């Protein structure tokens, strides 16, 4: 399969009054056509910054990509002139934000907000653009599209708004859709509908999806691959099966244990990970998770772990998985 998107060693920093915030510190991953990648992790770990860097939406005076490549069909987006980047935004790579209520313009009709992207990228007449907008509204499951087109944001419910966001993002038939916590602001039942909608749309259009979430339930439903991020780095990457059934990084295990599960007794307590993520002004020299990790070794505090491959698709950055680490057998096996 060909690589649609390949992110290599991405570093993003923000200039603030307190100094440089190293929000993303060496993220690499790839995305293939028709695939869904989930990025998970606690809030503040750099998920949104990674997404906005791919879209090059971080203003230059705020933050910068300090290192790395973002190859889209082989073209490096990091060095692409702004004008060409604008041509890709919304037409080749689209983005959906968390809260549709604040992410759509309250004083411009929904129809106009859907159509302006088409008019911008496909140079169509307004009538043709309108026909496409109607088609798109139908695709995302909005009844009465002709009437809805003229309405404004406040006339829609939360779930409908998110559907409109999806319509706006997909109207130019992009090859990548980045969705930053698209269901976080919604009720559980609406969440499920939106996730189903993502799946249907992917089947119909073949779009590749990068979905950012901290809801592992969403991941299980929709993703093929998962990147687990911590403090600006990908600490474990693998297929959904690998991440859910053979998690190797203590942080991944912690995330899974802190998630409510239907197959366990109701009384089994959830186990949140104690402590909080490190300060990104001065990230620790060693593994960023070491301070919260119950298995941390001396080496963890002083040296960054390299990625260890546990198969073609499964990689983890943890000293415990390093080939040089001593193999420890469970007690029973030692008898």
């Amino acid at each position, binding site marked *: 399969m060909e690589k649609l998107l390949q992110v290599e060693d991405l570093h993003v920093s923000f200039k603030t009054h307190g100094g440089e915030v190293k929000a993303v510190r060496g993220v690499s991953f790839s995305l293939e056509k028709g695939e869904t990648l989930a990025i998970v992790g606690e809030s503040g770990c750099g998920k949104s910054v990674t997404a906005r860097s791919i879209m090059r939406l971080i203003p230059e005076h705020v933050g910068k990509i300090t290192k790395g490549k973002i190859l889209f069909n082989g073209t490096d987006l990091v060095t692409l002139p702004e004008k060409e980047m604008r041509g890709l935004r*919304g037409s080749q790579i689209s983005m959906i934000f968390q809260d549709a209520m604040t992410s759509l313009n309250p004083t411009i009709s929904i129809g106009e907000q859907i159509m302006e992207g088409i008019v911008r990228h496909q140079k169509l007449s307004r009538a043709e653009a309108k026909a496409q907008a109607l088609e798109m509204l139908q695709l995302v499951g909005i009844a009465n599209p002709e009437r809805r087109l003229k309405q404004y944001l406040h006339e829609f419910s939360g779930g409908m708004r998110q559907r409109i*966001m999806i319509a706006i993002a997909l109207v130019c038939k992009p090859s990548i859709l980045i969705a930053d916590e698209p269901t976080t602001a919604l009720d559980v039942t609406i969440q499920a509908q939106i996730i189903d909608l993502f799946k249907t749309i992917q089947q119909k259009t073949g779009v590749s999806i990068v979905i950012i979430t901290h809801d592992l339930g969403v991941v299980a439903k929709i993703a093929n691959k998962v990147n687990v991020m911590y403090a600006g780095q990908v600490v474990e990457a693998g297929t959904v099966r690998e991440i859910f059934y053979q998690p190797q990084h203590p942080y991944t295990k912690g995330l899974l244990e802190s998630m409510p599960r239907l197959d366990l007794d109701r009384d089994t307590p959830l186990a949140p990970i104690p402590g909080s993520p490190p300060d990104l002004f001065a990230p620790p020299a060693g593994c960023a998770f070491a301070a919260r990790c119950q298995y941390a070794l001396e080496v963890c505090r002083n040296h960054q772990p390299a990625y260890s491959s546990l198969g073609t698709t499964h990689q983890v950055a943890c000293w415990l998985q390093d080939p040089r680490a001593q193999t420890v057998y469970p007690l029973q096996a030692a008898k």
Partner: protein
Amino acid sequence: MLSFVLKRFISMLITLWVIVTVTFFLMHAVPGSPFEREGKALNPTVEKNLMALYNLDKPLAVQYVSYLKSLVQFELGPSIIRSPETVNDMIGRSFPVSAKLGFFSLLFSVIAGIALGVVAALRHNKLIDYVATIISVIGIAVPNFVVAALLIKYFAVEWKLFPAATWGTWKHIVLPALALSFGPMAIIARFTRANMLDVLTQEYIETAKAKGLHPAVVILKHALRNSLLPVITLLGSLIANVLTGSFVIEKIFAIPGMGKYFVDSIYNRDYTVIMGTTVFYSTLLIILMFLVDIVYGIIDPRIKLYKKEG
């Protein structure tokens, strides 16, 4: 819609009635009379006859009721000092002058204020932003008669570009209109800048950028409109600002507008003129504010002035 307009109309009438009543009794509570000049009283018989002529010898309550009666017929009565001219005549003659001055002041303050505010916001924390902020602070802090004096000194006396006073050609409008618009312009500029800075951080601006729109489109179509909408709400109080400012400015520039009559009438205790001009100004303001509300409701789709039936 109809019931909304009706409701507003009734509340406007009540507001006006309160203004009339308060002004009427306050005015009579202030010592002095129209027939007194620099503390010297008239011949008592003459004064008595004059008082009778203008109904001023009746009890206050009776005067009040008869004033309300004539007001309902849009009769503002004769001027006591400038008799036989009526207050209606005076307003009819002087209001067009004040309206012209007010219109151009407002026009200039809106255009310049918005431009200044937008540029300041787009160049946030750059030199232009600081310059705009300084202009705004000066505009809000410095009273318009000082601005007027400076404008006259430079533009009229030293550079002889515009006439220093009086009324007539378009050139006569420039200096008083500028002097009058400086304060409102500063207020609009500050407000626009704050709105624009706020709107630029909104997520829908990011969405617009994520569509690949050109930055100019993002600003003009998505940011500017939403930052200007609230400016409309300011217009009501700015119109009041311009109206009251015009009293002073008309005096300074010797403009035959309403402001001059209003100020003079208070000095002279010209009761009918005080009442007439107050009622006229209040009505004007109340109507303009109502129009501002209607316009805002039409322009901003989120505002519903009235509930749709069914």
